[in-house]
């Protein structure tokens, strides 16, 4: 009777550990790949061409406005200061000028660090940090990083989570009171 029961257990507790192992593999290897979809930016923008080629710096396009707010990504109006017509020979620039600028359509850039509306983030208050402390270092890159979009939440993989904000605030002694970020 005892012998029969053992044989039906198919190797004792082995199935349990197989289940654990399979779950760990799915959870740590498959899931992180499946949860994010990969997207590319609408235009293959080269920061390197603008920085090295034209001598521009970050603040040429990503600047603070007079009232202290941060302009974020440049609009067509700013880009048109140089790109009213196609200047170079790249396909990316031609696409931008003909498909967006000339049609009056703003480029739907994918923002890696997009924060939801309920988060009030002031770039001015974080002016002392390097841009690359939070943003991908694209200044000297010819290509833009792949944008990973969370299939459930819809946010970018690089979007800073609240615990990251809180940790940094705690480290530098800034208040973590709710109203600091949620108005």
């Amino acid at each position, binding site marked *: 009777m005892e012998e029969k029961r053992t044989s039906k257990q198919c190797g004792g507790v082995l199935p349990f550990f197989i289940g654990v192992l399979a*779950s760990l593999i799915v959870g740590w290897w498959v*899931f992180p790949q499946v949860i994010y979809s990969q997207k590319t930016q609408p235009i293959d923008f080269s920061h390197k061409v603008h920085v090295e080629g034209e001598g521009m710096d970050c603040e040429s396009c990503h600047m603070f406005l007079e009232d202290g707010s941060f302009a974020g990504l440049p609009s067509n109006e700013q880009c048109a200061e140089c790109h009213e017509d196609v200047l170079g020979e790249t396909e990316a620039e031609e696409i931008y000028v003909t498909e967006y600028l000339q049609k009056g359509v703003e480029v739907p850039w994918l923002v890696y660090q997009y924060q939801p509306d309920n988060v009030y983030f002031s770039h001015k208050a974080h002016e002392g940090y390097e841009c690359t402390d939070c943003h991908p270092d694209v200044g000297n890159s010819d290509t833009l990083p792949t944008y990973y979009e969370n299939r459930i939440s819809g946010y970018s993989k690089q979007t800073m989570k609240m615990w990251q904000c809180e940790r940094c605030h705690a480290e530098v002694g800034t208040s973590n009171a709710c109203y600091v970020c949620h108005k």
Partner: protein
Amino acid sequence: MGIDRRTFIQLVTGGVVGSLFTPVIWKSLDDASIWSQNWPWIPRLKYGTITEQASVAKFGAAPCAEIVKSVGGSPYLTRGNAENEMSKGGVDPVSASGPQLMYSLSRVNGPMKKTAEGKYESISWEEAEKVLSEKLAAVKGKKGKLAVVSGDTTGTATEVLSGFAAGMGAECYLMPSEEQGAAVALSSMGGKGQIGYDLENSDFVLFVGADAMDSWGSVVRNQCVYSESRPTGEEIKTTYIYAGPFQNSTAAAADRWVPVAPGTGAIFCLGLAYHMLKAGASSSASDFADFKTLVMSRFSPDKVEKATGVAGTEMAAIAKRIMKSSAPVVVAGSEFAQGAGAADVIAASAVNMLLGRINKEGGMKILPELPKAVEAAAGRSELAAKDFVGYLAGIASGKVAAPAVMMSYEANPIYALPQNTALAQAVEKSGFLVSFSTYMDETASEADLIMPNPTCYERFEDAQTPYGVGAAMLAASAPVAEPLYNSKPTVDVVLGVASVLGIDLGYESADEVYQAKAEKAGADWDSLIEGAAYVSDSTESGSIKFAASVLSKAVTMPKGGEIALAPYSKLIIGTPTVAIPPLNVVAISKFELMGKDLMVQVNSKTAKKLGVSEGSKVKLAGAGGECAVRIHINEGVMNDVIAAPLGFGHTAWDAYSSGKGENISKLLTVGTESGTGISVWTSSFVSIA
């Protein structure tokens, strides 16, 4: 090795246990919670370039020059335009809500017509204009068949409507305002133009009835002038006295409040004139002798005290104080910016004449009207003098035939008129009511055709010489934003319909009209739309007289012994055209609205006389209707007076204003002013039913 039930359970259990040590559950839960921020019905902020543009806001009772901040082309914030003389950098409590009112839930989304079932159905602008043209074609040239009413006293849009009405052989009216009584007063005194007051250069201002800090004239400008004349920590340049029945905002800001019975402003002014004449004041006006005889015989201190409640010695002291000042001015008006008639302004003007303060710096000014843009339109004072309330009272009593078509622009007559129940019914008697309202207000809710006008942020707009300011001026603005809904500027609608009906108003579009107005006034259009105001320093030449014969008939002594109603108007509670802005709801005092109950105010002596106490729920009955209210005891109300706020009791609009309190306009009693024949309703009496 087969997989039996036990093995399967072990496998699944292992899988579940293993998953607890992976991010699958925890990350999915976290992401799902974040995903819930993105449900489609959750409002999203708009991001984009932040811009600023000058504008002229017409949300409040008087035009307000503003700087509107927009993000990505959508207005979100406004502040006063300090470079514009019209409102001197101030922003009133209604205009401050301008961007919010632009996105109001009460906006009419597009043209609509009422169906046979009494519901509204959306139609195209082509159809709406066709319906309007057909209705108007049937009444063109037929006297009394079309009536037009505008609530915009300062805009050139009203000139277009007036010109159109003239082309149709119809009458164009303005909604009741202080300007009506002032226009009739100036005309009675033999003057032409518009009365204004140079408050900023005066060293002594006596407001009689006129609630300058909440309803009289250009309120925000008055407030700025007051502020400039009394800089914190510095010498006070101007002394203010307020004479009225209730300690309102102006009385609270003034150096002294003199309690004066409602509707007795003219008697108070003539009582002052008595002491001035006795002290030797004189004038070169042709009817000075008649005026002096009238005052000395009928407005002796004892009679004035009996009518107004102000003792003769106090009147004498005030008169002495005024005469001692180097640049005094007396300003009279209604305590709630309507219905005072002409007598109060004539009487106050008489005091200013005795003081020699006509067209003097810091005194009462007679301002020129800016040239008309539309030749066929009535002049501003001519238009202001027309009696819309009298016209509707005639319809209500059956003496005047109701029009076949009534057009209502920037006005809400069904809500805002005095003796409201009867006069609203008179409006509804119109064969075909057309509302150009931006919002689904009480009048739009009864209209047969609604043709929504965009907000002032979405259209060209202008404003000329708001009533009360001390100089002729003009401000204008271009659209700040694209129209949010399917609205169309009324001026464009009227110009188009006029063209169909063969009426040439001289223009094809609204911006042409406004530009022509600026050009004829001598103003630079580009400067105007960039935020500057055109200001003229000219005044009308020619003298005015006392209009003693008009005063003799128009000013009568009250019977006394009754409980007088003293309505008051606070900008925070909205205007006759715009209901309580959502942002303002939280700022309404619990002494004005408790839950959904309207609070009226009496002093303890009156409360005892009426047998009521704090919080008592009573029914006030006037000649025109009843209102259920609660009592609040306030010693800032004079004896035998009930002070009650206007602006509540909306039945349309939105949750922020509808069903809150009562519309006190129902209690106002419309009478006729002897001598001028215009409608008046500042002397209304109530009883507790």
